[in-house]
Each structure stands twice: as C-alpha cells, then as structure tokens.
C-alpha cells in the first residue's frame, strides 16, 4: 500500500483502526519527502524529530484507549508565514531567515490540540506576495504535474506538498487567491474561508483586511475536517467572528437538487484560455446534471477589483512590513547611523516584489494621494461587496474558473509583474468582499489541472463544501496523482 497516495481521512481511519501507527505513517511521509522534495522543493524547514515525537504521543494516547480525533497522527505541514514556537518562521524572506517565534499561531495551537503531526514549514512567495512562488528568497517550488512549471502562489509550497504526496494536508494563507490559484494549478482542494472565520493570530500579516488562513487538501472531506479544527472565535483576534462552527463533515451531502448557482459572466472574459473555459463549463454542466439550477448572472464591478486590490493590499502591507527595520528582531545590516541601518536592512532584506508593493502602498497612503487612491479603492471595495450581496439574494453559490489559465512556466511571467497580477483576476474580488470560496479540481487542459471556484455567502462554508462534495463524488479528477517520475 502506498500510504502517501491516501487522503487524510483515509489515513485517519487506518490510524483509528490501528492498522498503522502514527509513527509508521510519519516515517513513511518523511521518506516520501526525502524521495520527492529534491524535485518539488516544497519544504523550507523540516521538523522530523518534532513530528515523530508528536506521532508517538498520538500512538500513546490511542494505546491508552483514547480517541484523539480523526486527524490525530496524520502528518501535515504549514505555510511558512504561520508562527511556530521554537521553529523558524521565515516568510521565505531573508528578513526573517533566522527568526524563531516565541509563540504558536492560534491555528497551530488548535492543530496541535487535535493531534497534528507537523512535518515542517513550506515555501511561499516572500511575505505572501506573488502568484508563482518564484518570489521566495530561497528557491522556487515546482509544480508536481510538470516540474518546469510554477505551482502558483503564494501558497505554492503548501499546495505542491499536498499534490506531491509530501503531506496529507497543509495550511496556506489567501490574500488575493493565494490558496485557490495554486490549488487550481496543482489539482488539489483549497479553501479561503470567510474573513473572520479563522483566527489570524500568528499569521505574519501581508494585508490584514484581506488575509485569511485556509486548508489545502486532496479532497473535500479533508477540507471539511481541517476547517472544523481551525475555525472558530479567538479572543486574540478582534476581527475573528463569534459565529458557531458547524460539524462540516456531517453537512457533506451529495444532494444539490434545486440549489441555485449563479455563473457571473465577467469571470469568463478576456484572458481566459479557451480550453480552461471549456473545462469549467463542462464542470458547470455536471452540476446541472446533479440537479443544480445554473444561470448566467453579472457582477458588474468585477473589472475594478484588481486595481482596487493593488491599492488596498499594498497600503496595508506597507504599514505591516514597517516593523522589519533591524531593531528588534530579524535581519540587521549595520549602517553608520540608525537611518542608514534601516535602509541597509530593508534594501537587503526584502526582495523586489515586496519593495514594489511597499512603494505602491506608501504612495497610496501619502497625503495628497490618499483620497484618490486608498479611499477610492475602499469605495470600490464596497461596490464589489454589494455586487455579491445582490447576487446572493438569488443564488446559493456562484461558480467561476479559479484561474484564467493553467500553471505557467517558471520564469514566464517573472519579469512582468502586471501579467503576474492578472493570474489572480478570478480570486481577488472574493477577498475584497471577505467571502468564502473553494477551488476544486474539475478537469485537465494540456495535461495540467484546472480548478473550479465556488463562492459562497459569508459564513456559509457548509454549502460550498456540499456542492464541492457532490461534484467530487460524481467525478474522478481528485483521484489523479502526478507522476513525478518516481515509484
């Protein structure tokens, strides 16, 4: 049995039945990483010793007759912008290359309580800025389906690790599509929950009003399970919502008869590859076959989402990243005085994309431009939210492509930031509106995965999961695994 080909809930069942031990699964996973990560390069930091210790603790609990839960003992890994006590958290930046947080993020805490076995920290675009994981200060991660292509970004490491069988599930963060776009590129399930559904405490901030942590999994059931562990109110995050968390797995019900699905035409506009559009339209037909009522609709302000996003996100980022100055923690490059030290540290610590966004954001907030840039963007944001609210008076969910293209080649867009920004066209409006959305594999184009994006009402992740589950049960795409040229 190839343990690494299973899903988290399948491994969880084996563990519960004590057909394998958590230590065995963990050792198998560590070996798998050893075999494939030289090609995929998903991991920035491996924590084998800690993982084995956590696995032993789960085995001991089960030996005592306890049931620590379905995900206990199942190996997973974390995007490297989630703080882990005692384990370096780099954000794939030279700025934090050696930084070891003294605390765990709330999601890490919750995972540990659920018996998670944490294999390590995963590569990403520096400070989560990018759409290809080529902006990592350390090395790019590769798409397991085609090693010459990008895995997407910024959670490229999180997504590639799941696709390559190096972890049963991972966590990523999604500011403008950073979970869903790579999930689409790598043929896995990725969800951005409603803003406020999952505590951001311990997530190194990129753009605080847009960031959200979410699961990356092999199937919808795993997505439901992981979301159930990490969701819920956290007194340490005042933007986290005090809304009850349903038992998501129990709501997975492959019956979507009569469910109303809106198909916003703006998401099928220019820039979408014809084959990607075909795959997505066939997926929508499948949903209709399953009994859903699909209907074209319009979200008229969609075209303004991207420019507005590129004012709001950099504005917040410019402020959030001001703390990396060489004074208290992280990289320090000396200078003759404090100002020169600041400048040397920030010049050498940040990569070009981060600098670009800091400059954009600083400009957007500066006096004289605030009203024309930042404030205008906030108004656009309100219009985008109203579009969605309007649509959700008629529809239960909306369905769109996750990305207008399949995974592109390494280096193909690296020199053209605007082309890179366009790859998040379909995901950005959802962050601007704070809504939940999921990307799931819905077919292939040129042998590469294509993602279907489902968008839901605020805090209605359950309906998203249900629709995704119905589609998944009726198709086989989620069972395909990349070859990777290894046994």
């Amino acid at each position, binding site marked *: 049995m190839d343990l690494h080909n299973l899903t988290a809930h399948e491994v969880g069942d084996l563990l519960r039945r004590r057909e394998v031990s958590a230590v065995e699964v963990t050792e198998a996973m560590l070996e798998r990483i050893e075999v494939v990560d030289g090609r995929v390069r998903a991991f920035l930091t491996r924590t084998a010793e800690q993982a084995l210790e956590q696995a032993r603790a789960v085995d001991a609990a089960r030996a005592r007759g306890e049931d620590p839960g379905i995900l206990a003992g199942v190996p997973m890994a974390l995007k490297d*912008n*989630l*703080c882990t006590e005692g384990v370096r*958290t780099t*954000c794939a930046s030279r700025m*934090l290359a050696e*930084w070891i*947080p*003294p*605390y765990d*993020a709330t999601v890490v805490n919750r995972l540990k309580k659920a018996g998670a076995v944490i294999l390590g920290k995963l590569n990403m675009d520096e400070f989560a800025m990018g759409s290809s994981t080529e902006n990592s200060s350390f090395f790019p991660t590769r798409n397991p389906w085609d090693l010459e292509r990008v895995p997407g970004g910024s959670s490229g490491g999180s997504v590639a690790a799941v696709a390559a069988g190096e972890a049963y599930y991972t966590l990523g963060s999604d500011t403008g599509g950073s979970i869903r776009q790579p999930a689409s590129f790598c043929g896995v399930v990725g969800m951005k929950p409603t803003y406020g559904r999952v505590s*951001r*405490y*311990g*997530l*190194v*901030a990129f*753009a*605080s*009003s847009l960031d959200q942590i979410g699961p990356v999994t092999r199937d919808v059931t795993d997505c439901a399970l992981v979301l159930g562990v990490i969701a819920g109110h956290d*007194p*340490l*995050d*005042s*933007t986290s919502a005090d809304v009850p968390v349903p038992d998501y797995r129990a709501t997975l019900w492959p019956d979507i008869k009569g469910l109303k699905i809106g198909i916003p035409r703006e998401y099928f506009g220019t820039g979408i590859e014809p084959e990607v559009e075909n795959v997505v339209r066939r997926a929508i037909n499948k949903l209709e076959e399953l009994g859903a009522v699909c209907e074209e609709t319009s979200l008229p302000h969609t075209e303004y989402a991207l420019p507005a996003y590129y004012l709001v996100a950099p*504005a*917040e980022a*410019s*402020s959030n990243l*001001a*703390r990396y*100055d060489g*004074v*208290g*923690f992280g990289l320090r490059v000396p200078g003759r005085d*404090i100002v020169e030290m*600041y400048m040397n540290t920030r010049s050498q610590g940040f990569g070009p994309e981060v600098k670009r966004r800091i400059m954009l954001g*600083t400009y957007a*907030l*500066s*006096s004289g431009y*605030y009203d024309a840039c*930042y404030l205008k963007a906030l108004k656009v944001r309100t219009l985008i939210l109203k579009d969605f609210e309007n649509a959700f008076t008629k529809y239960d969910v909306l369905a769109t492509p996750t990305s207008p293209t399949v995974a592109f080649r390494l280096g193909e867009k690296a020199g053209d930031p605007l082309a890179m920004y366009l790859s998040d066209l379909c995901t950005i409006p959802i962050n601007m509106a704070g809504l939940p959305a999921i990307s799931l594999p819905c077919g292939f184009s040129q042998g590469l995965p294509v993602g279907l994006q489902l968008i839901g009402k605020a805090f209605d992740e359950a309906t998203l999961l249900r629709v995704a589950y119905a589609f998944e049960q009726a198709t086989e795409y989620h069972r395909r695994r990349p070859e990777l040229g290894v046994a």
Partner: protein
Amino acid sequence: MEYEAVIGLEVHVELKTNAKAFCSCTTAFGGEPNTHVCPVCLGLPGVLPVINRRVVEFGLKTALALNCQVASFCKFDRKNYYYPDLPKNYQISQYDLPLARGGYLTINVDGKERVIGITRVHMEEDAGKLIHVDSPDGGYSLVDYNRTGVPLLEIVSEPDLRSPAEARAYMEKLRTILQYLDVSDCKMEEGSLRCDANVSVRPRGSQTFGTKTEVKNLNSFRSLQRALEYEIERQIAILESGGRVEQATMAWDESRNVTYVMRTKEEAQDYRYFPDPDLVPLEIDAAWIERVRRELPELPDARCRRLIEDYGLPAYDAGVITSSRDLADYFDRVVALYPDAKTVSNWLMGDFLRLLNAADLEPRQSPVPPEELASLLQLQKDGTISGKIAKQVLEEMFASGKGARQIVEEKGLVQISDEAALTRIVEEVLAANPSVVEDYRNGKEKALGYLVGQVMKATKGKANPSLVNRLLKERL
C-alpha cells in the same frame, strides 16, 4: 504694538489601567528593562492587538468629566512613522473618529473665571524608551519596551488660552480632574502627564491667527510656563523686527532656558494615517455611557461649591482643599467628626500640608489618619491641651504614628488649669524676676509676655495661657 498669545495644549495622559492597551502586560512603572513585554506589545510578526475595555472606560470617564460629546462609533487608526522605540513603526491612535469631542473646563486666573474648550479626546498607545550609551566609538542606544502599548489619552484643547499662566492653570485643573477620576497617576516626573503646546501671537484685538509653532514634550508645570513665556517673547521679537514666524516644531531646552527648532514645515512628517485593519471599530452604546456617567465621582468644581455652601468656607480655602481629591476626601472625613470646618481647613492648609510636603506624602498616605486629627482638635477645643501643645502633638503624631490622646498622656502634656498649682509657679516667677516686674509696672507692656513665657517654660508649655495671664495681672 501690544500682542496677545494664542495657545492650545495637547496633553498626553498615561492611564493607570492594570493592563496595557492591546495586550495583558502590566503597566507598572519601572521594572527591569524589557520584562513587561509580550509578543503583542513587542510588535512581533503575526501578533494582533485587542483593545482593553478598561482603557475605553477610563477614556469615557475623562471625556464625560470634561463635558464632551462621546462618539457612538469610533475606530483606531495607524499613525505611521519610523522610530527605534516604536516596535511596529506605527502607533495605534485615533484620527478622524476620536472617542469624544467638544467639551470644556473652567479655570480661574487672578480671580477671573475662563471657560476653555476641549476639541477632542482620543486613545492611543505609548512607545518605549531609548537609553543612550556613550562609548569611545560614537555610542549606541538600548531600547526598553516596557512602556510600549501603555494606554494614553490625548486631550486637545481649543486655542482658547491667552497666557502662560492660563496654560498652566488649565494643565493644573486638568490634572486635578484626572486625579478625581482616578484614571492616571498624573506624575509628570514619570511622564504620565506631559504636553505639547501650540502657540502663536497676534496684535491684541485681532481675530485672525498668527503662524503657530508647536513646542514638544513639556513635562513639568514650570517648563510649560517658562517655555511658553520664552516662545511668546521670541515670536513677538520676530514680528517687531518685521520678520515672519516660521511654522515649526520646537523643543524646550530646560538647561539653557530656550526653545529651539526640531523640524520645519518643509520637513513635516507624513503619518499616512489609515484605519487599523486589525481592530474592529468600537461601538459605544448609550447604556454604557450612562453607566459610566453614574459612576463619576463628585468633581472639583462641584465639590468646591459644596464646601462653600455647606460649611461656609471661604472660596480661597475651598479652592485649596478641593485642588486635590485626596485632600478634599481627608477634609470631609475630619469634618464629619469635628464639625468646625474653618478650624479644620486652617489646620489642613497650615501645619498638616507643611508636614506632608516635608515627608513628600499624599494626604491619603498621611501617618495621621483623619480620626486622629479630629481627636487632636477636640483635645484643644475642650482645653485639655493648648494650641501650642497641639502643634507639637501633631508633629509627634507625624513622626511616631501614635494617636493624639496617647501622646498627650504619655508625655504628660495635659494643660495645667489647676489655679492653686499655677499660682505657686506664677509667684515663683515673679519673685525670680523683680526687674521685669519693675519694668511692667513702669508701663512696659512687653514685660508681661516675658513673664508668661517664663511660666510656660516652667510648665513645659502646659499651663493654660488665659489662666496664666489672669493670675499674672492680678499680682502685678
């Protein structure tokens, strides 16, 4: 030409909540550097602030005491600037939607009452402290983050103040109110109360404002008054010589007694304020405001009026007594036991405050509790001890912490009113001082005082003075 000053003050008050504004670290003053810190107040990557509701509560109290309109909806903003003791390189503050606006307080200068407008009251967090170390290769700085995240209120006045004396009176009145509210230690030497002053001058009678300068970080009443005096003179001198005042941020050099330019208008900072996305806006409902309003203590102006009306105290006495909540509380407790308010006020304003100041204590820390002061006054009133002895006993009470009665008994200070015993002593004194007796009889009134003194000396001050006077006169 005659000029008048136009002054507005921005006062920063450190709130004495137990916990910091956005985390649960202690706000205790001092402590080993960097011991009162956590990831949140250090601004480590990934942390989030959560507002401490006590901070809002203290802000509300202050706003209501200053007659402000409290906002039902306010938010926090980020004020972005780089400074090594500011961990996040932005300060969480409030910009366009502050906690409260539009209040006032009254001051009294040279018997003239003035109403000074309060523009706004807002909440923000404090920064840390830099410790500069000299060394042969140019020196370096250490950062102590213990104070980062300590809650501050900023109270901004209208430009209604017209002289350094008024500015000082405003600041003193504000401190008194804050002390009554018990929201701050108001210790200027520890930085828990400090202010920036906006100051301009204009020809008397003019309605337009002159160009203002801002004098930063005035941390004593004395420096406030002297810096303003200097700055006003400086600006007048510029105008008199035909020059123009440059808009600038100034600092006060305490040792040289001058203000100097820190930044000019051209170098003004762009703080790039924007709403802090980590903190949800704050909704303050009417019920919350009402609850805080009901819990407000009696404030100095009301208390001063009560002392005048209920006890018939002179306005001056009432002003001194109520200038400190502590002293006023003490006064009330003494008067409850010894209802001669004027006598109590005399004692408090006199020996009591003198002894307290000498020991650098607040009335509440007095080694003489109000009950003991009342019993001391009672002992004097019923003739057990003389006024002079009473002063001695009070000093003894301060020094030893013993009760009045105990000291009087232990030291045998009970007044001698026994006529037979005193007569004997009086006769001895007269016999011993024939020449003084002679002087008196020749019309030297002063000689009587000397003889009284001798009797007092012989009785160690315990003789009843009026009895001594009568006995002496009878025999002279």
